[in-house]
């Protein structure tokens, strides 16, 4: 027995030596390797988010900004086992919510125990005080200030501003050279996307000593962030708001631009959305509603949808007629309600009309005659010069460039049952903005602006300037002429007179835009829609003088999808916006308005 006990002592010694050898191996031979691993454990690098730049309108009204929202987070690693249910019940009382969903959120944090789960966002003050008071009874629960993007104007200009969201893996791969990392916010559409690099700034870095939960214990070194730059837009927040009010409950778009410079003042589209729903988890229901809406609220009708422009297109016919010399203002055509089997919208006919009467009353027969005199080539040339086949160039996202049909295009793209191609019917359809013609509201607004300026088409712009965090300004917008038809002064005067006639004239279709103290030019359009109710268009420009010595300050285009008619469907909306604008600008006083 004793011999065996001695052997057991030897066994002890052998094992102890084995352990000692391993200890020496780790501590003496491989020390460097483990020292390095310990340092990597200890020292963490955390990026400090740079505050995202603001987006402002032309007068400095904030369209998009940031705030810190006090969020409630749960760190599973800090909650002892079995406390979660109690904590959820207590939280339910404090937050006045059901404990079930709270518990579910907390449970989801157990998969990655060190990763905080957001339980509730944007807590109001009284609840924050209660959380602080009950803190010791809520293990694992903490309040953390999280960044949140705010859009104070809500749905106004939503499509132009766009929205932000967490970067997707596809975007991360695509932008691999631009310092983005997982979990970053990135602009997903509109200005937020187009100017993301300027808005996001440069994140700072903090190197600190941390415990295993990643809690910083001591700051070792840091690199300050560079705040994002502010984007000042040319948009007019008031106009955007009025446009949204006018459009509420309808599907459509309102575009306003500054004709002489090309600044975009308003880009409204309905149904609209509040960009905040993509940031705030409390608004998840609204997000789902928007994403599943059959009308696709995220698609801007101002630039990403095209419609037959209807009679607004007749402006092109007028200009083409004048520039080719085939039409003079005094030439008259007789309208009996139809011509060559094609009807005028007024079945009884307009009688004998000249250019002014033809445009003011939007007589289709007049323009049928005109088109025959002018021909498709001159029409096409004029339409192109006025940008009817060009996108806005604002770069706010996918954009339609409209369609200016030509016989060549028709032969290439249209199949007819009888093999007959482009004919007089197509020409007549084109001149009244029907048939194959398609335009976006932004193109139609640009059309009237260019028409009033004697065919001078300005390059559109929406960003005025970029202002850095230190106040340094970088101008972006410079007025530039994109193309100029250089109409002679007389022709330009005639066009302006005709446009004014549509509003001011005796039987003008855009009479709803008539405002005391302000001379307004305009045109209506009722686009026939074989799939449903007609679309209503109205465009306007003000102030406008026949002589051209008053510089117009606003051109507006209103589209109401399925609005039935231009003057009755779209007219009141344009009136609503233009009237408020005119009052604000001091052209008319409130009481002077006769409704």
């Amino acid at each position, binding site marked *: 027995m004793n011999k065996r*006990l001695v052997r*057991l002592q030897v066994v*002890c010694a052998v094992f102890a030596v084995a352990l000692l050898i391993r200890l020496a191996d780790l501590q003496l031979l491989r020390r460097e390797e*483990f*020292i390095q691993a310990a340092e990597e454990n200890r020292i963490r690098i955390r990026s400090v988010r740079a505050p995202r730049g603001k987006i402002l309108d032309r007068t400095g009204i904030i369209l998009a900004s940031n705030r810190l929202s006090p969020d409630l987070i749960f760190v599973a690693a800090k909650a002892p086992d079995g406390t979660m249910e109690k904590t959820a019940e207590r939280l339910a009382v404090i937050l006045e919510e059901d404990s079930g969903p709270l518990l579910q959120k907390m449970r989801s944090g157990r998969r990655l125990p060190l990763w905080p789960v957001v339980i509730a966002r944007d807590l109001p003050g009284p609840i924050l005080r209660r959380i602080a008071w009950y803190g010791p009874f809520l293990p694992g629960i903490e309040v953390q200030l999280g960044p949140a993007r705010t859009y104070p104007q809500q749905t106004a200009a939503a499509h132009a501003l766009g929205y932000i969201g967490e970067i997707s893996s596809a975007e991360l791969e695509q932008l691999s050279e631009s310092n983005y990392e997982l979990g970053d916010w990135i602009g997903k559409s509109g200005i937020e996307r187009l100017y993301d690099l300027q808005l996001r700034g440069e994140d700072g870095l903090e190197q600190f000593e941390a415990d*295993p939960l990643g809690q910083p214990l001591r700051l070792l070194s840091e690199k300050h962030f560079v705040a994002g730059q502010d984007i000042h837009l040319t948009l007019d927040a008031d106009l955007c708001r009025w446009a949204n009010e006018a459009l509420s409950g309808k599907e459509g778009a309102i575009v306003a631009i500054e004709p002489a410079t090309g600044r975009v003042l308003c880009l409204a589209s309905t149904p609209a959305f509040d960009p905040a729903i993509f940031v705030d988890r409390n608004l998840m229901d609204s997000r789902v509603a928007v994403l599943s809406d059959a009308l696709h609220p995220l698609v801007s009708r101002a630039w990403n949808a095209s419609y037959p422009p209807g009679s607004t297109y007749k402006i092109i016919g007028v200009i083409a007629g004048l520039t080719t010399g085939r039409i003079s203002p005094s030439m008259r055509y007789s309208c009996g309600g139809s011509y060559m089997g094609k009807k005028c919208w007024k079945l009884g006919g307009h009688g004998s009309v000249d250019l002014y009467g033809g445009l003011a009353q939007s007589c289709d027969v007049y323009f049928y005659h005109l088109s025959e005199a002018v021909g498709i080539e001159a029409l096409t040339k004029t339409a192109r010069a006025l940008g009817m086949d060009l996108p806005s160039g604002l770069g706010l996202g996918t954009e339609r460039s409209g369609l200016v049909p030509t016989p060549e295009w028709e032969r290439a793209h249209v199949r007819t049952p009888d093999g007959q191609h482009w004919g007089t019917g197509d020409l007549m359809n084109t001149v009244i903005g029907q048939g194959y013609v398609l335009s976006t509201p932004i193109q139609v607004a640009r059309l009237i602006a260019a028409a009033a300026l004697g065919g001078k088409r300005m390059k559109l712009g929406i960003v005025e300037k970029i202002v850095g965090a230190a106040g340094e300004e970088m101008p972006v917008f410079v007025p530039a002429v994109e193309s100029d038809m250089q109409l002679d002064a007389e022709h330009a005067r005639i066009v302006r007179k005709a446009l004014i006639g549509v509003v001011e004239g005796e039987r003008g279709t855009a009479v709803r835009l008539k405002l005391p103290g302000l001379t307004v030019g305009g045109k209506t359009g009722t686009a026939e829609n074989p799939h449903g109710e007609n679309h209503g268009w109205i465009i306007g420009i003000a102030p406008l003088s026949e002589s051209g010595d008053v510089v117009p300050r606003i051109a507006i285009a209103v589209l109401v999808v399925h609005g039935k008619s231009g003057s009755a469907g779209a007219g009141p909306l344009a009136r609503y916006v233009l009237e408020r604008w005119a009052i604000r600008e001091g052209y008319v006083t409130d009481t002077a308005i006769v409704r």
Partner: protein
Amino acid sequence: MKGDRHPAVPFPFHSSSVNRSELDRPLLFSTVALLVIGLLALYVAVRSETPAGIRNPDFIRQSVWIGIGMAVMLLLAKTPFSAISGKAYVIFALGIFLLVITVLVAPKIRGAKSWIVLGSVRVQPSELFKPFCALALAALLSDRRLKKIPQLEIPLAAAAVLLPMALILLQPDLGTAVSYGALLVGVPYIAGLPVKYILCAFAAALSFVGRIVMGVAQDELNHLPTAIGAPLSDWRAGLVLFGIAGAAVIGVKIGSRIKKSHFSLVWILGWLISMIAYFASFPIEASLKQYQRLRIVAFVSPGSDPRGASYNVLQSMIAVGSGGLFGRGMTGASQTALGFLPERHTDFIFSAISETFGFLGAGLTLALYVYLLYRILQIGIHASSETGALCAAGIGSIFLFHLIVNVGMTLGLVPIIGIPLPLLSYGGSSMVSTLAALGLVQSIAIERKRAIYGAPEEKNHRNY
């Protein structure tokens, strides 16, 4: 001279009930030295908590437990060993009763019904029972009545360990249950069980545990850690292997008949049991929980998942390795101080020591431990009774097992099974159990001194 300053009182224990001169001083010295190192390590481990240092509740609790443990140790040391061993079966029955109660009524804490809760105190009967199970086993194997019926002795001895093991597995607490296994090997070996039995038991254990490890590793990692693993993981390969082994056994049997030499049936028995264990491991492996499988994987391949199951092993190895020769000191030991080391005051206390005090500190701790073990077994060698010798051997085996598994685990040599390092790890039940065991050993030492030098003075006086 310096050595003369405290000739009579080498340690500051002034208890009138124990004649301090009777305690085995080397054992007491290494016990107290390890306790001091343990408290120092605990002090380091709780540095990052609030309140830190000696006002930390864990530190205070551990100090109180040490006090209680020392009292138990002195009480047991003072009681004559024959008096204790005479009650060995009664104590054993009481212990089994406690374990049954535990399984029945204990609340589930961290997934196991291991603790009996008395007010604010949690007691772990499976820990406390350890030294008394060793005592009962020693009593059983030295029982003169049983020696006459050897057919009964071995099964009874096996049952005395396997019964508490089974009860603890029911809790379930794998680590503590496995540590009872040390008794199963150590005590019968010292009692004179032929080595071939133990070899057969090892073969059976290897066919069982080894195959489970290899099987799990194969499933989870899709590759085998070693070439040797291949025949163990596939049942067809196992069949071939056992076929060869069986042929070898039969060959030896025939050979022994020709040579007319002795052939033990144990070899055939061992072969059979190993084969049964091997094939029984398949359903057992299938019933393992996912976390248990991941622990096995973490052992086989520590780098496979640094955030998951192997996190503990890796962090422990980083702590140990970064300690170097002299250690990183109390403030520099970032793994321990900042809390990267998991369970740093319980199962991984040795890693904390290694990081803070380096190879010198860890080596000293190991040396003290080996000295403690040497001393326990030395007392066993010189014990005046067979029961005492076996009891010391049993306690030594348990300590050795704890040392190998716990320290091996912190060094990444042994898979993680949560067992404490006696005298060093935080934990009241373990501390009291360890000190009680050392009290038993002291009692054995005193019994021998009494046998040699006669009873202490006070008792001699009474005899006049």
